[in-house]
């Protein structure tokens, strides 16, 4: 009797373990398999439809052609790095020889001026977008706080924000270019003008979501918390530091995430026109180049641009979770 009971108990235990593991497997499947199916289906659709499109530069690149271009872009990068290393080695050797012969010789070192590879351009783009974004944040967050705290200022500034917010970066760029070349005059510029142009354009476009969201976050602080601050007679500085900033942090981060994705989109367009050596310029150069590989290279750039945009957003989210007290928020 007891053995039967024992057996049935064991059996049901086994079954329940099986059930649990099944559930686990199914949720894991949902988490990995479904996105995988989505990607595979997209790749199939892409490969099939690419085959149907004929352009003056040959067939539209399918996934395979793009993959080939990735490896060729990488080998280009490696080859260019080897050339640069060889150049510096030669230069060092030559300088060493000449200074050995002539004690008065002052060695000149020159930078390697080979072309930027795809990976160099990614780095440049990242630096440009981050500096533009940080410059914007530096202005936007204090401005947003001021607007959120002061209803009169908000009423005064609101029309300007509403008008400038929808302006495309392409409209700003010529103006920025002219102003930069007029104002930023130096014989030995630390930073190139094209970098400044695209950076400022990025800033101008990514300013607004941060201003607006910060202002909303600050102005919607619950009345109760403001009353606490009033009863405690907190000074304006303490009020901002202890009440306003923490309360508005979730909204500030929402604004920052929106801004960063806007910044990344704007950057590509700005680089195309400003000829700042980045991903935008890469795309533009390949377009002008018009070789049979160009379209595949541009498509490779598109994939990379999308992927980096995604990573930037994730990084911002991680930062939000790190900084914000509101752990439930910002999971999307």
């Amino acid at each position: 009797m007891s053995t039967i009971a024992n057996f049935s108990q064991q059996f049901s235990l086994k079954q329940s373990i099986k059930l649990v593991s099944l559930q686990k497997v199914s949720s894991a499947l949902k988490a990995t398999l479904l996105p995988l199916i989505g990607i595979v289906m997209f790749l199939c659709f892409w490969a099939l439809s690419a085959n149907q499109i004929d352009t003056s530069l040959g067939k539209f690149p399918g996934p395979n052609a793009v993959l080939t271009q990735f490896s060729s872009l990488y080998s280009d990068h490696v080859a260019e790095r080897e050339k640069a290393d060889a150049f510096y080695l030669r230069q060092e050797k030559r300088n060493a020889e000449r200074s050995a012969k002539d004690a008065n010789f002052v060695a000149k070192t020159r930078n390697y001026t080979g072309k930027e590879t795809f990976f160099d351009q990614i780095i440049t783009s990242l630096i440009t977008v981050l500096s533009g974004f940080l410059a914007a944040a530096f202005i936007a967050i204090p401005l947003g706080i001021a607007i959120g705290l002061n209803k009169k200022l908000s009423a005064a500034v609101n029309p300007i924000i509403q008008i400038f917010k929808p302006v495309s970066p392409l409209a700003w760029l010529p103006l920025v270019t002219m102003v930069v070349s007029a104002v930023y005059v130096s014989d030995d510029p630390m930073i190139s003008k094209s970098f400044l142009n695209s950076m400022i354009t990025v800033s101008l476009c990514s300013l607004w979501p941060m201003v607006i969201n910060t202002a909303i976050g600050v102005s919607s602080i619950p009345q109760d918390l403001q009353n606490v601050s009033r009863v405690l007679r907190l000074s304006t500085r303490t009020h901002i530091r202890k009440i306003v900033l923490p309360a508005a942090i979730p909204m500030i981060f929402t604004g920052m995430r929106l801004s960063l994705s806007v910044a990344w989109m704007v950057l590509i367009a700005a680089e195309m026109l400003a000829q700042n050596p980045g991903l935008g310029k890469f795309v533009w150069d390949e377009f002008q180049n018009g070789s049979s590989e160009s379209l595949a290279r541009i498509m490779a750039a598109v994939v990379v641009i999308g992927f980096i945009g995604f990573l930037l957003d994730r990084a911002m989210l991680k930062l939000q979770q790190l900084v914000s007290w509101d752990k439930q928020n910002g999971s999307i």
Partner: protein
Amino acid sequence: MDTLLNISHIDMVFPTPTGGFTALKDVDIQLKKNEFISLIGHSGCGKSTVLNIVAGLYQATTGGVLLNNKEVTEPGPERAVVFQNHSLLPWLTSYQNVELAVEQVFGKSKSKAEKREWIEYNLKLVHMDHAMHKRPNEISGGMQQRVGIARALAMQPEILLMDEPFGALDALTRAHMQDSLMEIQQELNNSVIMITHDVDEAVLLSDRIVMMTNGPEATVGEILDVNLERPRNRLSLAKDPEYNRLRAEVLQFLYEKQRKVEKFELKPNKSTKSNSTSSAASS
């Protein structure tokens, strides 16, 4: 005994698009030192408005509030407020919430160690020393309100203003909190104005109960002295004839003299009318 707080003939008129709305009319209340008074009345009668004027969050249209013969014009920690919805800063722990108040009030006059001791003392007083380093969303509603009270007490106010402090809590928790508050009063003997709509709470805790008439133009209807011996115990008081007389008196004021005519009483009539017409049409 001299008057600590004098709420002197205040009127409160709120501007509305259709002209001024007189919420309070000639409200006149005096509070002695170490006295505990409750303001009781139906919702919407302007109890909270009175408290907010005393706190300095609102300005009375006419009349004024004197604390120690000085006019109250702005909020300040000497009139600490316990808000209805705890109003703790959600990003700070219990300790830090109290600390913010202590830093503000005793920032220079107390040393670091003294401040820490004072914060811990106040949290211990409300029995929250076990959850000092928890955030508001990690503790229950009753506990949140305890921390809210600790924060107010830590300001060492001349008068403690409580705006329906236990209104958002369930009945059992509320009873616990009332006992806790009586215990604290036994020790500190603060001057308190408490807003409530709970008759038992008012009789149990107060020295005097100020009953307010219905708004608009709400004012002080009657004032009831509660001369029950302290410490009070809710169980033994339940059979006490004096307690029950006071309770009955407040109930009588609220439900006979100031019976509130609710507007929704009209609505069912309307709907039955429309029902009858529709049923008539269908028949």
